[in-house]
């Protein structure tokens, strides 16, 4: 018998092809190249009127694609049902955790959904989408009257900074960040009172508190080594407090030598000292944010740098009488450019509307509905988070952490900082500088090395033509 087709050879060849094929075929083949051309023709808009300022067409379909994460998606469904009643249609709703992987092919095909909550770890790159002109400029929404008071424009009821947060280097606002997050060092009022501690105002007081806490068997700080950029919530804002907004803006704008200034040296030096004195909880460098929060709610560490979502996220392990509070940024003292009480707060949870969707007016209208008092109350009551609508929390019974954040925000007044490097240059902030921070906190590198490395990384990002650049206006 002819033996050209011996089983062994056949298997070997199949294996050889398989070896080549299996490992890397997975990712890119899923999103194969596609043909161009706008397949979505926007539907004819309706007539604009006082009650319908954006000109939504009655009965026109609307597709919403929503991130279903820590906030869930019930609050959006509530707004959708209001939309359904008003415009005689049924919004097609999809809740998912994988916004990016699900929507990237649809954007590449020019068939995106109308309305998206672009959040979560797998989100779409808003900056890249904005640069490619795939997102609708939401300026008409900002200039439309609010639902509660037709005399007021949407623009006028948003908390300061919300509009800027959705801008990517021009006046156009591409994302409406619906939730308002207050960042800072979070602590248990109960623990502080029991130990007779007061929340410190300066780096020196913080280090003194560290010694006291250590004596009491509590670590001053803990952080999630798996996501070391959590520390940047404090670190970058402290740079802004010590050196003023210009110093922080220079870092955001990737200016030459932006990191080589005294304010940065002072702040990073402070972290070097904390690390040298071992005021961080042992093992922090290998933890997830959940493990960090659990250690902290158990009283192993006094403080965590976190956002106001921590109240909802850490709720499962937080004792009922924890009495959560947030402290404003600590700094160098009276020599700081901004006073004590300065806060890092920013709008988050970006909602976007596709520029070439079928019903862009409907997408904006749904956002307008979400900004109405009825919907913001629902959000704050059920999610325990502030919204980007100014004063929307007034008259509501707030949980301890939220109340504390609300008070801190009011006290800060105009002294609210927002480091844009965290959303403009995600890789630079989270990975490159994040890696440096991780080493700084374990004492592997000095503050000087951190600054040198951060400057080098910033310069490299500036030179990299594939990274879209943004500037403070």
């Amino acid at each position, binding site marked *: 018998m*002819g033996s050209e087709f011996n089983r*062994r050879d056949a*298997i070997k060849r199949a*294996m*050889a092809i*398989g*070896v*080549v*094929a*299996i*490992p*890397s*075929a997975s*990712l*890119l*083949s899923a*999103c*194969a*190249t*596609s043909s*161009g*051309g706008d397949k979505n023709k926007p539907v004819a808009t309706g007539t604009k009127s006082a009650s319908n300022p954006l000109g939504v067409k009655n009965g026109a379909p609307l597709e919403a694609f929503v991130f279903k994460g820590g906030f869930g998606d019930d609050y959006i469904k509530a707004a959708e049902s209001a939309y359904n009643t008003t415009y005689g249609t049924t919004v097609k709703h999809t809740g998912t955790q994988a916004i990016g*992987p699900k929507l*990237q092919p649809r*954007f*590449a095909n*020019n068939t995106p959904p109308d309305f998206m909550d672009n959040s979560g770890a*797998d989100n779409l*790159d808003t*900056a*890249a*989408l904005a640069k*490619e002109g*795939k997102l609708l400029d939401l300026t008409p929404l900002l200039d439309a009257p609010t639902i509660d008071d037709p005399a007021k424009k949407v623009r006028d009821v948003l908390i300061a900074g919300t509009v800027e947060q959705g801008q990517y280097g021009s006046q156009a606002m591409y994302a409406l960040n619906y939730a308002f997050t207050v960042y800072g060092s979070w602590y248990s009022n109960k623990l502080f009172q029991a130990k007779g501690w007061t929340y410190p105002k300066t780096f020196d007081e913080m280090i003194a508190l560290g010694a006291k806490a250590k004596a009491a068997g509590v670590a001053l700080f803990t952080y999630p*080594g*798996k996501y*070391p*950029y959590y520390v940047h919530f404090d670190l970058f804002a402290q740079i802004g407090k010590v050196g003023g907004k210009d110093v922080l803006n220079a870092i955001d704008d990737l200016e030459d030598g932006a990191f080589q200034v005294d304010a940065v040296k002072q702040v990073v030096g402070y972290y070097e000292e904390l690390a040298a004195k071992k005021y961080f909880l*042992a*093992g*922090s*460098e*290998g*933890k*997830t944010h959940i*493990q960090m929060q659990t*250690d902290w709610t158990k009283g192993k560490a006094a403080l965590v740098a976190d956002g106001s979502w921590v109240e909802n996220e850490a709720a499962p392990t937080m004792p009922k009488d924890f009495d959560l509070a947030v402290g404003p940024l600590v700094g160098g003292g009276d020599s700081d450019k901004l006073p004590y009480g300065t806060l890092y707060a920013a709008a988050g949870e970006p909602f976007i509307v596709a520029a070439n969707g079928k019903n862009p007016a409907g997408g904006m209208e749904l956002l307008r509905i979400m900004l109405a008092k009825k919907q913001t109350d629902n959000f704050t009551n059920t999610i325990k988070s502030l919204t980007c609508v100014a004063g929307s929390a007034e008259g509501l019974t707030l949980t301890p952490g939220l109340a504390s954040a609300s008070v801190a925000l009011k006290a800060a007044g105009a002294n609210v900082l927002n480091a844009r490097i965290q959303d403009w240059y*995600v*890789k630079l902030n*989270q*990975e490159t500088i*994040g*890696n440096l921070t*991780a*080493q700084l906190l*374990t004492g*592997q590198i000095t503050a000087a090395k951190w600054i040198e490395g951060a400057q080098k990384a910033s310069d490299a990002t500036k030179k990299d033509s*594939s*990274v*879209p650049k943004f500037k403070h206006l």
Partner: protein
Amino acid sequence: MRHGKYRFIIGFLAIPLALYGVLVISPFVQDFQISLTDWTGLTPDKHYIGFDNYRKIIHNHLFWQSLWHNVLLLLIVPVVTLALGLFFAFMLNVGGRRKGSASVAGVRGSGAYKIIFFFPQVLSVAVIAILWQQIYNPDPEEGVLNVVLHGIGLGSQTQSWLGDPKLALACIMAVMVWANVGFYVVLFSAGMSSIPTEIYEASLLDGANRTTTFFRVTLPLLSDTVATGWVYMGIIAMDAFAYVQLMSVNNGGPNEKTDVVPLLLFKTAFRDNSQYGLAAAMGVAMLLVTLVFAVLTLRLSRRERIEF
């Protein structure tokens, strides 16, 4: 028989080959095509920029570091996994004390061991990674591994496992071995049970001990199975994406000491300003490395088939 052979073969192979061409080969061709563009993956527009992406890769030390980690995985993980798999399978099937009339037997309780070894295989990679992330938890009071070390008086050996740049990759390798060894125990057991007992009896009569039996009888007769296992372990080692992504700190950290090319590719395509073209070029580079591995493996494992 010989008459209609080719028609027969073509008849049977045409459809699978066509499917293979469309679903497997064409994405590779497209991948190469995309790697020559500056495509972001977000729009239909892309521009051809020649070999710029490849130039970028060559000058990217992170790529070389990640590739080196893949090579390390490729050199270490399959060897350790297969060696352990062979050892355990041998002990379970042949390595036991002889009792009664049975001349070839496994160690006592080998049936139960087989189930225990195989257990990780029924868990998904995600479950395994999360499980081990908890075991590696650096907390001296909560991390299982550290608590155990403390408990047996080795408190000085507690580590910040995944947070230590020197240890992190080794820790991830250990999990990959743990997760895969059971499959090879079962695979090699099946291979060993097909070896006729007469051969073992003959070697026994000649006075061979366990070690000699293993190296002179079992291993040569299993070489085909081992070669197959080698290739599959190689694939797992070249990937390692899920393990590293789920377990490592800061996505391939600490300090990028656990980054592997598939993870770098993923980050480039989906996170880092959506650089699909650059990611595609990394995919092509990965393909080349895997090709070299496949060719080398098949060359080195080429030997005469032993009939029995």
